[in-house]
């Protein structure tokens, strides 16, 4: 927090005129100033959006990039992001004011390996944060369901996203969420009317592609009215091994009795930076089933924050992260028990190889009114090399007196007794290592209800382990 004043100072001293991008000498700018410059030059939108973005920008400048002194970022230094001058990734110059054209940048065939071989799914593709109608197929989700690009919804006023946008994701507290809010352009808008049931999953694919160090700020909004039901998948991918920065925010509003199964599949380039926040608000009897799968990025952080605001709302937050080489993969979850009688279950597993660094920070916060809370949280890690590292911090903060909460974390290596057992049956060390590592990871994949997703992730995990030596 101590650096707030200095960061704010940049803004006042900014060597920025109002004469447009051409006159800006980028060498004289600090990265935060550069964000401000980019902020000024983004395409205009309706007044409410301009105002929301401005609040985001102000807040981002006030907060600055978090440092490791910030408790939530203690094990993750974002210096590699903070020190870089990313330019705003754009596929079409016009941005929010017109339909983007991504023709020629990404071809349908490039996406095949990311679509899980599911042509029947409703697929929305975003290239560098911008919706690509050419690559998407999202018609026929149902009468009570609207699946749209946020930019289009903003332009046309359909669905009135202003009712929810920025209301769930706490940009006042989280710098990256504030930054995303400052640059809201596009993303997915999924609206489920009361009792709507979407049979096929809705798959949002965010492809980063292009030259230079670009940043995109996808912003998604999912509004599930009472008793509606849907499965939403967010995939973050790249076709080439580029260096770029994805700073994504998804807001989910779950009405009474609504259920959303949310999968986040982070498969960014291993040179990329990824910060993704999913923030959810749950009303009475709603159910959230979240699975976070993270394998990509050189520095990646996934936040899943949910508030159990209505009685008997429930959530399952599971995750698997696999890191190798010099990857740094951080997972943070917060479950806020605000209302009584809410169960929350959480299992995160990590497999760290090479010189990678994994982080799990899971907070379960039980408010005084949240009696009869039933919270279970665990985090298990497997270190495959002597130089891999994990920091795990399961946290329980309980202010109610009639609750049942457990949490725990483990860090271990491959079980040598099990290794010998497999060897003694003729299975060599390398195969045994793959088998044991896979087994460790597979049991959290078992919790995935979407069968096709489960099988694809199993394959992905297996091939990843098979490809790396000890």
């Amino acid at each position, binding site marked *: 927090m101590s650096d707030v004043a200095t960061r704010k100072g940049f803004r006042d001293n900014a060597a920025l005129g109002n004469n447009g991008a051409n006159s800006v000498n980028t060498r004289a700018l600090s990265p935060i100033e550069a964000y401000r410059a980019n902020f000024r030059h983004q395409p205009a939108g309706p007044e409410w959006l301009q105002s929301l973005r401005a609040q985001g920008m102000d807040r981002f400048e006030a907060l600055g990039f978090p440092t490791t002194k910030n408790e939530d970022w203690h094990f993750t230094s974002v210096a590699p992001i903070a020190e870089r001058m990313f330019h705003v990734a754009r596929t079409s110059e016009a941005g929010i004011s017109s339909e983007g054209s991504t023709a020629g940048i990404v071809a349908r065939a490039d996406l095949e390996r990311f679509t899980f071989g599911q042509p029947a799914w409703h697929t929305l593709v975003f290239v560098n944060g911008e919706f690509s109608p050419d690559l998407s197929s999202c018609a026929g989700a149902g009468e009570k369901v609207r699946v749209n690009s946020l930019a289009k919804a903003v332009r046309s006023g359909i669905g009135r996203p202003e009712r929810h946008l920025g209301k769930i994701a706490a940009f006042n507290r989280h710098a990256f969420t504030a930054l995303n809010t400052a640059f809201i352009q596009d993303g997915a808008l999924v609206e489920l009317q009361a009792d709507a049931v979407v049979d096929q999953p809705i798959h949002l694919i965010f492809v980063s592609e292009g030259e230079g160090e670009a940043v995109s700020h996808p912003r998604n909004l999912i509004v599930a009215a009472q008793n509606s039901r849907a499965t939403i998948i967010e995939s973050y991918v790249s076709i080439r091994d580029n260096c770029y920065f994805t700073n994504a925010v998804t807001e989910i509003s779950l009405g009474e009795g609504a259920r959303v199964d949310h999968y986040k599949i982070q498969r960014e380039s291993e040179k990329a930076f990824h910060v993704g926040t999913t923030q959810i608000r749950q009303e009475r009897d709603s159910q959230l089933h979240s699975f976070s799968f993270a394998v990509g990025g050189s520095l990646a952080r996934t936040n899943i924050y949910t508030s159990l605001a209505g009685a008997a709302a429930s959530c399952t937050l599971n995750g698997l992260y696999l890191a190798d080489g010099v990857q740094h993969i951080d997972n943070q979850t917060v479950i806020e028990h605000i209302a009584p009688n809410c169960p929350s279950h959480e299992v995160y597993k990590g497999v760290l190889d090479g010189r990678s660094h994994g982080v799990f920070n899971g907070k379960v916060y039980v408010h005084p009114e949240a009696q009869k809370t039933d919270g279970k949280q665990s985090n298990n890690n497997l270190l495959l090399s002597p130089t891999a590292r994990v920091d795990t911090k399961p946290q329980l903060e309980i202010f109610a007196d009639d609750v049942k909460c457990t949490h725990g974390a483990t860090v271990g290596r491959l079980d*040598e007794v099990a290794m010998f*057992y497999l060897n*003694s*049956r*003729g*299975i060599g060390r390398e195969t045994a290592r793959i*088998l044991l590592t*896979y*087994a460790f990871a*597979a049991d959290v994949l078992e919790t995935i209800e979407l069968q096709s997703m489960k099988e694809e992730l199993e394959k992905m995990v297996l091939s990843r382990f098979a490809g790396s030596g000890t």
Partner: protein
Amino acid sequence: MGPNGSGKSTLAQVLAGNPSYQVTQGTVTYDGQNLLELDPEVRAQNGIFLAFQYPVEIPGVSNAYFLRSAYNEIRKAKGMEEVDPLEFLDLVEEKLKLVDMDESMLSRSVNQGFSGGEKKRNEIFQMAVLAPRLAILDETDSGLDIDALRIVAQGVNTLRSPENATIVVTHYQRLLNYIVPDFVHVLSNGRIVKSGGKELALELEEKGYDWLQNVDAGAGAAA
């Protein structure tokens, strides 16, 4: 046979190649090869099998996958083609009956949640599928009730043939009512102190291991 701490399990582990044991002297010759120079998986591929005293639980790996991998590794080592899951299923069906286990066990994780008896039967089932030339049963009778003991013994007896050998490690004569040995060797302090036929086991049962403290170790080389 031998009293607690005489080195029976150590011998079994060393023969199978457990890396936690370091052999400081001596040799083990198997099929003209120095067994001690081979990695445990190579020993297994050459027909050695250890039925564990405490079979290991491996959550997340199904018995079917585990055993098929083992079976195929051994086939590969012999230059034979691997079998696919369906062929493998046909092959193991009969072996399951031998140890009175249900096919549903194949989809369960290796030994996870198995009772003591089930774990031991699973060891014999694996032995039946992998068809070793030298099987070492390390205290397979410990912790078994009489019915399980019968099933295990019956399995071992069925698999017995002139082409293979079995070393049964036990400290009770009870198992030998069901598995009749050709030879009995008695270990004490890491050495074979007495060898004989099946009647030696009965004599031991009657006189106790104390009796052997006074017996001079004869030619005490390992088998």
